[in-house]
């Protein structure tokens, strides 16, 4: 087909219209970079995207003269894919804020991109405490939880409750090893000792019976599971099958995992979560609002973290105005740190200089089937670690933003 000059001009004019229109409304763009197809889909994934929309609704963006677009993508648990998407979003698609990013490997890669492009990055899904430790930067905030919080709450509580000898079953990669390291610290601090540990290949292990038998033979009082997702589910299921009488510590167990296990198997296990839908009137109100968007599930602390972090970002945006929010990422993050946080999921809190969001953490015990009133009625509160003690002290993190 020949293209004549007139067609060409017409096409060019048409193509020009949306460009002009886009320039008029001041708008922000939030990118949800998450696992939409892999092992963390249930604990983050599509419900995390719904949580962003929920935050926009609850804040009432349209009534405040702002326009906020939301896009999402699957990082496939590959750091290179995640970093590539983040770069494209910042460079080409005009994304101002990236949230979620479950998977510690991807999370650290995206933190690097956010720093390079001077944009804003709030992680809720990853566990590694390095995001606010040695790898911290001024563009990154770590919201819902981290390995230190889990280790301190579960490890510390069980050690104090008489669990003075431990055996670890650990996924053989950075996250598992970090969790074991952090937990060992708290066990030893409480005069407990680690009698043994076994690292297994990750991913691809489905049979944990050999490892569990070694844990059984060790005679340790507590078996610590330094793994996540399906691995934890399979470990717990098989521990029950082989009649392990020791206390099982699921050091990273989400409510979606408990749902998958069923109370029959999961009862009695100690878990640490910074959010539980039925914790108080505010969390219940949030869960009720989220229901139409995510029927049949309850938000995990990761998904709640996404909601809470976006809400805080919007509060800062309303105060500073869209042009400021589209400017320097460091400046935006500084404004977020300066403003106290408060929302239905985590209650009042704050963001520390190293990017660590501060709130209490809770130790829960999983209910017996007879205690549960129905699906998702799973947890009962055992202990609360106050906000100022729940996370690693600033001085111990070796973050370069902390002036000694």
């Amino acid at each position, binding site marked *: 087909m020949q293209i004549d000059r007139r067609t060409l001009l017409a096409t060019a004019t048409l193509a020009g219209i949306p460009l002009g229109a886009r320039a008029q409304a001041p708008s922000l763009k939030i990118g949800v970079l998450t696992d939409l197809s892999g092992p963390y889909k249930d604990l983050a994934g599509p419900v995390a995207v719904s949580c962003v929309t929920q935050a926009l609704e609850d804040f009432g963006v349209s009534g405040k003269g702002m326009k906020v677009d939301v896009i999402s993508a699957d990082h496939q648990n590959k750091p290179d894919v995640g970093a590539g998407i983040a770069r494209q979003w910042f460079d080409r698609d005009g994304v101002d804020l990236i949230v979620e990013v479950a998977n510690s490997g991807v999370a650290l890669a995206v933190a690097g991109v956010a720093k390079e492009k001077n944009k804003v990055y709030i992680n809720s899904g990853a566990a590694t405490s390095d995001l606010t430790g040695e790898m911290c930067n001024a563009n990154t905030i770590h919201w819902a939880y981290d390995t230190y919080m889990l280790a301190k709450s579960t490890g510390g509580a069980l050690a104090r409750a008489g669990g003075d000898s431990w055996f670890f079953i650990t996924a053989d990669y950075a996250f598992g090893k970090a969790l074991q390291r952090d937990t060992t610290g708290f066990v030893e601090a409480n005069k407990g000792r680690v009698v043994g540990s076994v690292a297994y290949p990750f991913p691809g292990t489905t049979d944990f019976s*050999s490892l569990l038998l070694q844990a059984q033979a060790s005679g340790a009082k507590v078996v610590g599971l330094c793994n996540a997702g399906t691995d934890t589910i399979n470990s717990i299921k*098989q521990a029950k099958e082989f009649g392990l009488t020791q206390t099982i510590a699921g050091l990273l167990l989400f409510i979606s995992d408990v749902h998958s296990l069923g109370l029959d198997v999961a009862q009695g296990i100690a878990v640490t979560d910074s959010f539980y839908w039925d914790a108080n009137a505010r969390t219940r109100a949030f869960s009720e609002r989220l229901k139409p968007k995510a029927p049949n599930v309850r938000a995990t602390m990761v998904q709640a973290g996404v909601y809470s972090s976006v809400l805080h970002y919007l509060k800062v945006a309303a105060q500073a105005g869209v042009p400021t929010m589209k400017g320097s990422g460091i400046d935006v993050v500084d404004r977020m740190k300066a403003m106290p946080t408060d929302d239905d999921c985590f209650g009042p809190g704050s963001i520390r200089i190293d990017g660590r969001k501060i709130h209490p953490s809770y130790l829960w015990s999983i209910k017996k089937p007879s205690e549960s009133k129905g699906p998702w009625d799973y947890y009962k509160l055992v202990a609360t670690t106050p906000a100022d003690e729940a996370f690693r002290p600033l001085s111990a993190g070796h973050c370069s933003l902390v002036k000694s």
Partner: protein
Amino acid sequence: MLSILGYNVGPMLAQGVLGLINGAFYALLSLGLAVIFGLLNIINFAHGALYMIGAFVAWVLLNYLGIGYWPSLILVPILVGCFGMLIERVLISKLYKLDHLYGLLLTFGLALIMEGLMRNYFGSSGMPFAVPESLRGATRLGFMIMPTYRVWVVAASFVVCIGTWLVIEKTSIGATLRAATENPALVQAFGVNVPRLVTMTYGGGVALAAFAGVMAAPMYSVNPSMGSNVIIVVFAVVVIGGMGSILGSILTGFGLGLVEGFTKYLYPQGSGVVIFVLMVIVLLLRPAGLFGKAA
């Protein structure tokens, strides 16, 4: 306690028994693969996904229709086997004249689609599936606690493996099947409907995978990725045993389960690679596999 080379015998024995249980799954799955490869010359990459589908169908039957574990053990292989025959008729049969690689690509694609669809509908964390009432509990063996269900798994898969081997080696259907593997044109000339035989064989291989899936459901969580976790190992089993060798895949399946079990005790980090190391050694020394005939 008795010890050999500084290792206690009790835990070693326990790991051996556990290895045998995993070996039961390897044997069941690699048996189906070997049967399919023997007759169809198709490297069935969808085998793991069909194993996973077997577990999910059992879960759906239980939760939506109230059909329990025991009927499922018969029903699920039939249902999934029929699904397999449908796949063979509609898709795989178009590829027999082409290179192996096309069959591999097709079945690999099918596996990805099945896994993706299940993940989309059922999520990624998996579904609980309780051990049937009559197989609950465990026996104290002295050196370990042996769950009753796992004893059943080893026994059942052993019987099914031997049964399949007998059908293929000792019956007239099996003889026809083996003949069709050697020379399909000649067998067709004797009045045997070879394409139908091929379809039935694929269905049979798939049914074995689905059977393994039902057996696995109460042990592992019913999870979309349960197939892809096991399929690579199963391929290694088939390669070590000798492509298409029925007895070879059964013996290698149980044997490698044992090896993996011992590795998990002696050097757990190596348990993920030990089978592949063995595969490399076997391929170097006996390229046709332990039980395969040299081409």
